[in-house]
């Protein structure tokens, strides 16, 4: 109850405290894509927005509702995606997030929501790039 911090690793506390990457993308060159996952039954809702430039993610931001692990994971993903090539694959899946955050097993459901939002973002990014290379007639 009142000992809310007892169950959180230093990494979670640090990420949660800063929430780096929270908010909206600033105006800049490049295409904007987003990926979202909502699971209110797990009390988690995550949305990533990224700017794509030259097949790389030039910037990434998130918005999220959820527990400290959810917010920390979303922040970690958003900051680590910056500069990543869009074809790099899913570098931060739920299992990796769990390890990075030293999260308990019962948080896996919420971390999977973060993973789903990331997957949707990367799928969107690849679609944008495909459409740019092969525009519709």
């Amino acid at each position, binding site marked *: 109850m009142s000992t809310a911090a007892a169950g959180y690793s230093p990494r979670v506390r640090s990420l*949660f405290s800063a929430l780096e990457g929270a908010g909206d993308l600033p105006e800049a060159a490049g295409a904007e894509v987003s990926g979202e996952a909502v699971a209110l039954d797990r009390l988690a809702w995550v949305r990533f927005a990224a700017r794509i430039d030259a097949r790389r993610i030039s910037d990434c931001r998130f918005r999220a509702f959820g*527990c400290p692990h959810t917010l920390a994971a979303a922040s970690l993903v958003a900051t680590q995606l910056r500069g990543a090539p869009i074809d790099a694959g899913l570098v931060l899946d739920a299992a990796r997030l769990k390890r990075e955050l030293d999260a308990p097993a019962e948080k896996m459901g919420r971390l999977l929501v973060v993973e789903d939002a990331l997957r949707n973002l990367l799928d969107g990014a690849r679609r944008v790039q495909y459409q740019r290379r092969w525009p519709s007639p």
Partner: protein
Amino acid sequence: MRDAVYLDHAATAPLDPRVAALMSACLADPDLQANPASSHAAGRAAAERLAAARGQVARLVNALPEAIVLTSGATESVNLAVLGSVRGAGAGHRHVVTSRVEHRAGLDACRQLEREGHDVTWLAPGGDGEISAAQVEAVLREDTALVSLMHANNETGALTDIGAVAGLCEARGIAFHTDAAQSAGKVPVDAALPGIALLSFCAHKLGGPKGIGALYVRRRPRPPMQPLHFGGGHERGLRSGTLALHQAVGFGLACELAAAALGDESPRIRALRERLWGQLQAAAPAWRNGAAEPSVPGILSVGFAGIEGESLLLELDGVVAAASGAACNSATGEPSHVLRALGRSEEAIQASLRLSLGRGTQAEDVDRAAAAIVRAVARLRAALPLGALERIA
């Protein structure tokens, strides 16, 4: 706890320094080391001190000292009241009436009775959190052995009209038990009201030590009771075991202090609670769980749209000590059964915070806590996905 604003008095109140000093003195007093049940002079001295403490405890609830059974706390008192009275009622009385918003002690004791073959009627509260006498009257039966309802709810603070319910029970010869753990010392509690057969309360909610409580057991007519455990037949055969004199002495003083402060503290704390609620309007949309009145003065259960309770508590960690919507179920991590019974959604339950004020709470504490909560809510909302604020409430 030293730097944070402590708003978790409903979980436990800080030990009053006067109580701590008296308990320490009692532990160190060479004349109070004997077993109060011993017949020699040293035992009699301890027994005299125990009797004085029992008298102080009894006076808080307008009872005779002989009607007070000392226990390890309200959980044991509730278990003894519910299990002991129903098991003692005999084969012809298999029905129990309680509510869905009881403390886990009451819920789990009644579930145990169901496992033993008893029939339990679980009353649901209205949206205001109250159980009415009319609801109770509608379900009473010929074979009803016990009606057990909280006086004040530990999560919402809502007060039950125990006088009306006790009157119904009195007229039908049914035992009535009330869990007064959250109300004793906060509002006037009168065990002498017609129809109250059993009444539970404890020390640590009113500035006394943890580990001691009391069960008032009406003397005439005494409800048929079975003990939960056996030994030397202490406490009128209902609670065997050598009593901890220093605990009883601390409990007694805490009751006396609470009774003396009741007239001034109750309106002061109620005004502080409303001041807190008023300041939390800056974090709207927000809601109050349960009706503002009738209630015990110190409990405010609030919810904030778009907020996940765990994150809010971490935001407040070290600044405000409060309880989440998981409230009394923190050991299991289950969402509050009380808020669920009030019809709140899972999201709204998780978005809720129980803030409970006590004798040590001052206006500046309330102002500091409110400002911190408003800041924390704003920060978390700033990170919400679009549409979440409207959808999560």
